[in-house]
């Protein structure tokens, strides 16, 4: 198969995989980086908190939330654009989600 001619569902899967990998990078950075550098970060202060303490108790949670929400929104947007692209072909099931709403 020539590049660019794969079915929309395959292109979608490749993009989802890339998105997943891209979002796991900040996750790993926070999970390992915040605890590891907490003593050094705690020399700085934010809102009265030592920064290391703040990152572990609040900052990291906000990053996690951004990752999960970002993933849900990006996937929805991806599905919407792919649905538009393949609109002309009624046999394609670009989202691979046929029947999802009525299972």
């Amino acid at each position, binding site marked *: 198969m020539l590049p660019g001619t794969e079915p929309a569902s395959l292109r979608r899967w490749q993009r989802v995989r890339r998105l997943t990998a891209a979002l796991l990078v900040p996750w790993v950075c926070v999970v390992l980086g915040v605890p590891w550098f907490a003593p050094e970060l705690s020399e700085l202060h934010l809102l009265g908190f030592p920064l290391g303490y703040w990152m572990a108790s609040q900052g990291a949670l906000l990053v996690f939330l951004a990752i999960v929400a970002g993933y849900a929104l990006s996937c929805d947007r991806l599905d919407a654009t792919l649905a538009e692209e393949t609109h002309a072909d009624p046999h394609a099931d670009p989202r691979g989600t046929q029947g999802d*709403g009525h299972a």
Partner: protein
Amino acid sequence: MPDAQVAFVRRLHRIYGGFALGVLAFVVLLGALERLGWPRGWIGAMFLIATILVYAVIGLISRTTDEVEYFVAGRRVPAMYNGMATAADWMSAASFIGTAGVLYLQGFAGLAYILGWTGGYCLVALLLAPYLRRFGQYTIPDFLGARYGALARVIGALSTVLVSFVYLVVQIYGVGLITSHLTGFTFEIGIFVGLGGVLVCSFLGGMRAVTWTQVAQYIVLIVAYTVPVVWLSVKQTGNPVPMLAYGAQVAQVSEREREIEADPREREVIEVFAQRARAANAKLADVHASLEADRQALMQRIAELKAADAPLGRIQQQERRLRELPTDDDSARATYIAQRDEALRRAQPLGGLPPHAQPYARPQSVAAEEESQAGSMQSGATHEGNARAMSDSARRNFIALALCLMVGTAAMPHILMRSYTTPSVSEARRSVAWALFFIALLYLMAPALAVFVKYEVLYHLVGVPFDELPEWIRRWSKLSRALVSARDVNGDGVLQFGELVMSGDLIVLAAPEIGGLPNVVGYLVAAGGLAAALSTADGLLLTIANALSHDIYYRVLNPQASPIRRVMLAKVMVLMVALGAAYMASLHLADILPFVAAAFSLASAALFPALTLGVFWRRANALGAAAGMLTGLGVCLYYMATNLPWTRALLGLPGAGARWFDIDPVAAGVFAVPAGLAVAIVGSLIGPSPGAMQSALVERIRGLSGPASPS
């Protein structure tokens, strides 16, 4: 979204919006009744009865015998509500009661739980939830069975039962603790009353009833957590947003901790404990003679008291101590060692607690201090080296524990199962985001609560004369001496920080009393803790019962069973598992949190590699999955069994275990997951390629071919 679904969501908004207002009105009403002089027992009972009644009514309305309704709530729970139900499922007695307590006791180290219990949702969202939803069956072993065959299903089902049962026992324990606090029943009766509350939901309506009850339980528990935290925040800082406000309190707490470390009277307390430790150590030199000496001393004391015609109570107290003396040398040795370790722990600055905001701090023990004062330059240097090694080990353990909890989150069957209950794949993804939002709401407040309570204790309790101690200390220590005790160790008539021992379980439950809030808030918190424990217990109970009835009985033993029979059997299983767990809980376990962490390690080791490889690696096959799961479980169980003191005792192993990289046994998953993953990969490469059916399944869950759902 179809119109019917839109109307359904609107109806849910109305119902649960009304319910949330009702909860607030109920609290205000009881607050007013308290002012009018209602006795506290009545208010506590009202909270217990009213909340359990609401859950029971929802459970009854949602009763069902339909299979899809019973196992996956009809697959029509909208994302936001599924998120709320997941959050309630998730936040257990340990989260609600335990987390702030651990943060109070361990300071920074406790944040590993906060990180671990939220960060795992990234893995759930990115690696599993959408794929499980597209797979669209009933249980997690269902996925393993379809992807890898019957053996993987059975191992998966048995691991599910093992993990969830450990976790369930902890929940029921929490239910018993709170019920006995609310009503004054004994702990054992409390367990069985609470058990009724669990069963009315899950027994009749399965997942459907549990889901809609859990939404209500989430509302109760978040209101119950928010009210005291915001109240304390306003009271201490004037700022109603605790997350922003407690930065200032962290600084104040740290400052006061430094004052207390330097306080000469605190040093007296430390010296008393150091002496006790030395005394216990001396007794260990000749256990037999020391035991005999202790006995003689007590008998003489009793004789003296009798001769002096002392009050009967004091004589009986001494007689009880005499009866409780160890009977043989071995148990005497154990007692002396425990006494010495306890005294050593308390012979430290701040009663052995680390400075609150400092990462990986280890308070210096007095013994080490004396050594370094007496020793030469060289021993001073090694002492510093030891301190650095300890702080490095604390950092490693922090990361290991957080990782285990995260990977364990992404392998907890009762959480993953919730991906099946949403109407679509897109809603499954959004539901994880909602779940994390609702969970983070509580976990952002837990560290604040811990700091507010510590502030109250440090500034308003330490330094109070013993005869003016607040009422809550006496009341809670009467319930159990392990919860709180305050003894005038140095005999100056004033409470020092080192003289106060508070259990982690107490911090949240007693926070309103410690902060001087009305009783009604204390009972609201207890009702919230009950909601947290019940909701998690319900979810776990269903997971276990479904693994047994659906995966083991129906899929393996009797594939001809009719749907009605399957649902019937699932209900019977719910009942039996609940009774078994209640029995285990009534045996009184140690502190709540280590058991929970152990369950997470087990879940991560047993299930995570097989599940993720099943989605992301086409080549993964039956041999690899089964070998990987067994290896993961084996490594995890081996490391725990050879390193936990009580399992060592059970197995008759002498001495302490050999730890790898000094990692705590509850974080065994940090070794077991990579081991399981490696074996799964090697096994898959050795075994044959997956067949056509498995390949088609992988295509389907990745969205490469429709239809999305088999039903």
